[in-house]
């Protein structure tokens, strides 16, 4: 399935664009997405943490992705 990932903060610098398109097998999970990203962009290993938001909520690694999900990369936050 084709997915679109939105990249904020340092993840946008690493990937080089705000909207990143990639393809994963159907039924792929959040963990699969993280693995795929870390293979394509080894710099992700330097981050303190990487969370994924699905449709505006933090997602667990085991959650399954769907083609129309809003998927967002959340590197360590630093508001305030």
């Amino acid at each position: 399935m084709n997915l679109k990932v939105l990249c904020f903060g340092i993840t946008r610098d690493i990937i080089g664009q705000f909207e990143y398109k990639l393809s994963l097998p159907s039924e792929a999970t959040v963990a699969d997405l993280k693995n795929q990203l870390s293979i394509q962009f080894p710099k992700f290993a330097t981050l303190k943490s990487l969370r994924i938001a699905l449709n505006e909520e933090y997602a667990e690694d085991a959650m399954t992705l769907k083609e129309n999900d809003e998927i967002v990369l959340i590197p360590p936050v630093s508001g305030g």
Partner: protein
Amino acid sequence: MIDIQLLHTPLSEKACLDFVKTDDVGGIVVFVGTVRNQTKGKAVIRLDFEAYEPMAISEMRKIAILAVEQFSLKKISLHHRVGTLDVGEIPVVIAVSSAHRKAAFVACEFVIDTLKETVPIWKKEIFEDGEVWVSATP
């Protein structure tokens, strides 16, 4: 009872204070975050804040709801700014009111600590010779 705002314009401490001020409260605590002129001895020129806006607002709201429940607050106002901020400008204001002061102090600290952990907002420090996303790497 809850006032959440994510703004691209300067914040007003007074707006937050006025929102939480009612006749039945005994104490109000206001936290104002400001942009510091240095980090680890290195001069900071400015900060760039960005947010995943819809989720930042919903996460701010979750924290506010939790704080109201946990500390029996009367009212809470939580404003955060995004965009480019110069030294001395205000990225965040939190005002809370409660019947007694103790709860207000504790609640205010809870809100800023939790915001820094869960709300999808990022800041980049701009130095004379470079820039860095705060807290992104160890």
